[in-house]
């Protein structure tokens, strides 16, 4: 711990933010007895303090993302516990547990992903893990669906493919130079594998008639693809850019043209002419946002909690209604800052850079799909806002992905523990000029 003052101040800031939210719950909230918000407050503050303490056991260069993560997770817990009426039972406890899971997943993600060499050497395992997820979807979901039901728990294996896909993109970045002659073509095996993987994911989503997550995978793939173009020895030319853009355009046009009927319906839906049918959720969401205004109707005072999927698909609107658009924007702002940390403290290797870009792409696209979809700016899909929407799989995976982001801030390079070594892929002259940043928060 290089700067304990800064660490303490950050803890206080997070506690203060949550205390302010809880004060709003106490003053403006709709609850039966004072015990309900009191239990919620206890749970939130306990999780804060426990995580702050647990962080002390992890030696990191920066803790910024960790503080932001616990800030946003407990914000989410307070939101989810307030929908309809402030209480800490049933679904609220379930969400609290998933929040704890997300924090644990973050730690696991950090430990696994910080070392470039470890994953680089075992990247076959990543492909195997993706394969297992795909097989699980094909075999265990029963019907053509993305969900696996194990007792009371529903799992969505396609969610788990997201971080694995990012890792597949990141670990293969250094293989760009290894071209192999196949017939008349010079090919890079890893690129072929990634393209094949993307194609399989597309087919799988098509088969499950659930194309909601497809844009997220596409965003990860596009960011990885762009980074391959930017790779040091890659030949950059206008021709490359134009070809890539044209290919993307053709794929998009074909995809829209031959999209299934249910997708076409959503592309051309007029929600206000069908407010009791397909447009029900979106129209209710927009009415709720309008009703909430800037400052909201108060925790637990909304009506959107009576609408299906208020806690995940249209969660942005539910928060806007009860807490106000201003608060909902602040919540999104916190997530954006979390994603923007690698812009302030840049990654040290292409592996970490690719990982950061993948996580950033996945999160922004997922948030865009959820928020803009529920507000009728784009077709409505059933994806979640990371950390805010309820859902175990999403929380766990989002936590893991933030762990990947944390690992880019405290990387282990050249497999030497605890030391900041430059990546072998960076030119020697430039890496020497770069000062090693040290920051606590």
């Amino acid at each position, binding site marked *: 711990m290089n700067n304990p003052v800064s660490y303490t101040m950050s803890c206080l800031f997070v506690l203060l933010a949550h205390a302010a939210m809880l004060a709003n719950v106490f003053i403006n909230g709709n609850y039966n007895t004072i015990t309900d918000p009191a239990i919620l407050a206890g749970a939130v503050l306990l999780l804060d303090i426990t995580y702050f303490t647990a962080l002390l056991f992890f030696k990191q260069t920066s803790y910024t993302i960790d503080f932001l993560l616990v800030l946003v997770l407990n914000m989410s817990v307070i939101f989810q516990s307030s929908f309809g009426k402030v209480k800490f039972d049933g679904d609220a406890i379930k969400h609290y547990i998933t929040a704890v899971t997300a924090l644990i997943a973050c730690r696991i993600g950090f430990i696994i992903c910080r070392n470039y060499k470890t994953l680089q050497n075992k990247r076959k395992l990543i492909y195997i893990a993706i394969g297992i997820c795909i097989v699980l979807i094909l075999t265990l979901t029963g019907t053509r669906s993305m969900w696996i039901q194990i007792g009371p728990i529903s799992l969505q294996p396609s969610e788990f493919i997201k971080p694995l896909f990012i890792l597949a993109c990141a670990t293969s970045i250094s293989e760009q130079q290894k071209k192999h002659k196949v017939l008349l073509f010079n090919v890079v095996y890893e690129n072929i594998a990634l393209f094949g993987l993307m194609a399989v994911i597309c087919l799988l989503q098509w088969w499950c008639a659930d194309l909601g997550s497809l844009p997220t995978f596409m*965003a990860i793939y596009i*960011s990885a693809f*762009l*980074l391959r173009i*930017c*790779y*040091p020895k890659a030949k950059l030319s206008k021709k490359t850019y134009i070809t890539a853009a044209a290919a993307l355009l053709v794929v998009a046009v074909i995809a829209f043209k031959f999209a299934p009927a249910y997708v076409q319906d959503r592309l051309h839906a007029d929600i*206000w002419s069908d*407010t009791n049918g397909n447009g029900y959720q979106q*129209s209710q969401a*927009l*009415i709720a*946002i*309008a*009703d909430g*205004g*800037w400052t909201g109707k108060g925790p637990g005072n909304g009506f959107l909690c009576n609408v299906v999927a208020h806690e995940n698909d249209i969660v942005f609107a539910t928060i806007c209604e009860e807490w106000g*658009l201003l608060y909902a*924007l602040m919540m*999104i702002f916190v997530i*954006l800052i979390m*994603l*923007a940390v*690698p*812009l302030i403290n*840049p*990654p*040290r290797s*292409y592996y970490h*850079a*690719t990982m*950061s*870009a993948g996580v*950033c*792409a996945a999160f*922004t*696209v997922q*948030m*865009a799909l959820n*928020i*803009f979809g529920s*507000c009728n*700016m784009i077709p409505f899909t059933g994806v979640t806002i990371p950390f805010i929407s309820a859902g175990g799989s999403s929380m766990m995976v989002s936590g893991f992905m933030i762990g990947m982001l944390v690992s880019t801030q405290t990387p282990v390079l050249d497999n030497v523990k605890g030391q900041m070594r430059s990546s072998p892929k*960076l030119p020697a002259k*430039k*890496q020497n000029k*770069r000062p090693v940043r040290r920051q606590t928060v």
Partner: protein
Amino acid sequence: MKSIRRCQHIMSLFLVLFIAGMVTLVIKIQRESAFYMMNSDKHVLGMVYDRNGDVLFDGSLKEGDTSKYGENYFIDVGNLIGDDKGQMTNTLVAKNVEKLNNYSFSQGIVDEGGKAALYTTLDHKANRTVYNAFSGSDGCAVAYNYKTGEILVCTSIPSLDVTNGYKELGTFRDGTLMSKNLSGTVPGSTQKVSTVISALEIMGPERLLAKTFNCSGKYTNKSGKVIDCHELYGHGDLSLQQAVEKSCNPYFAQLIEDPDLPFEELKEMYEDLGYALNGEETEYFEIDGIECMKASTTLTDPTDFQTQWGCMGQGDTLVSPIQLMMWQSAIANGTGKMTMPHLINKVTDVKGKVTEKASTKYSDRLFTEKTAESMKQILLTNGANNYAYSVPNHKIGVKSGTAQVQNGDKENSLLVGFVDEPDFPIAFCVVLEDRNSTYLTAESITQTMLDALSSQAN
């Protein structure tokens, strides 16, 4: 490090695109939130006022509550102002209900003390006077200031008082739930104004005014069909001025057939005036959101009976009274451009802040100033020669019309025109339905309307 920076650029791209989307979303929500709320069951409507502050609609009134304003207080403009109940969809309130909602994104719904209101250009007192002038007969009357575009009178009978609700819906007479000023009606000889404008524009005033055609009481056109004149023994040789004053059908039938009036150019002029020709899909123009039907007629062949009949305003020709009135504005202001009418003068939001204010707008030029001046003179001469007695107090330019409807079983009487006085620039159209069933005339209603408006103006 260049590549790491590129990676950061890619991340920045995703973040910037997302932030741009969020900014768009916030703007969208700000702009559309009133519309969203109108789709919920939670809204508190404000007031609609006339030009003198008189109430035309009160959103706080409960159905059947006549204690505040009295019985049938709103009936004169009831089917124009309307309400939000959904029975009438083409009304001022129905089309502007979002602006009338006492809601703002920052304040939410304001149950009491909200100041959302539509301040209209209508004159409630004059409308009531005109409504009463119909004395139980059906019809409609519309008048506006052709310099500013403010609609002052727009009444249509039968009408309803929206505070009475719709429990007696089954007993409502046809036309109760719509303002007839907005719908197409057979224009009768008022259509001849369009034909004369077209001929003046194509042939030029000098050539047209020099022409004469003979009326012997009936005219057999080039396709062998007979066009009758209302004057059994004919009018003899007629100039254009005389033909307009006498409303002589044989004159106009011969004018349509005249080779000096190329038929294709005539059609083009009609289209420029806004007619949908020969079964084209009917279009609408908007007055503060309210849809008003555009004119339509049949023009297929200059020697064809239906075409000639259409140019005289019979057959399947349909024009809304408001459009007839708007053409008068293009003549009266001498520019050939219509003054576009409007009903809303200003809109205030829940805090009473003016959010919209009307301004005068004009159409594209429909015909030249020379044509406008000639047509104006023809109508003023007609007014001076034939209406000085029936509409005595104003210098008016007019054209009357008799429209045969319901296969000739009934005749509607129309009068379109304008007042040529700098301080009282009014264009108008009056339709009196089934003129043979009443002692009233379109002229008497026009006189009442102009007197009511001038007394208000003074």
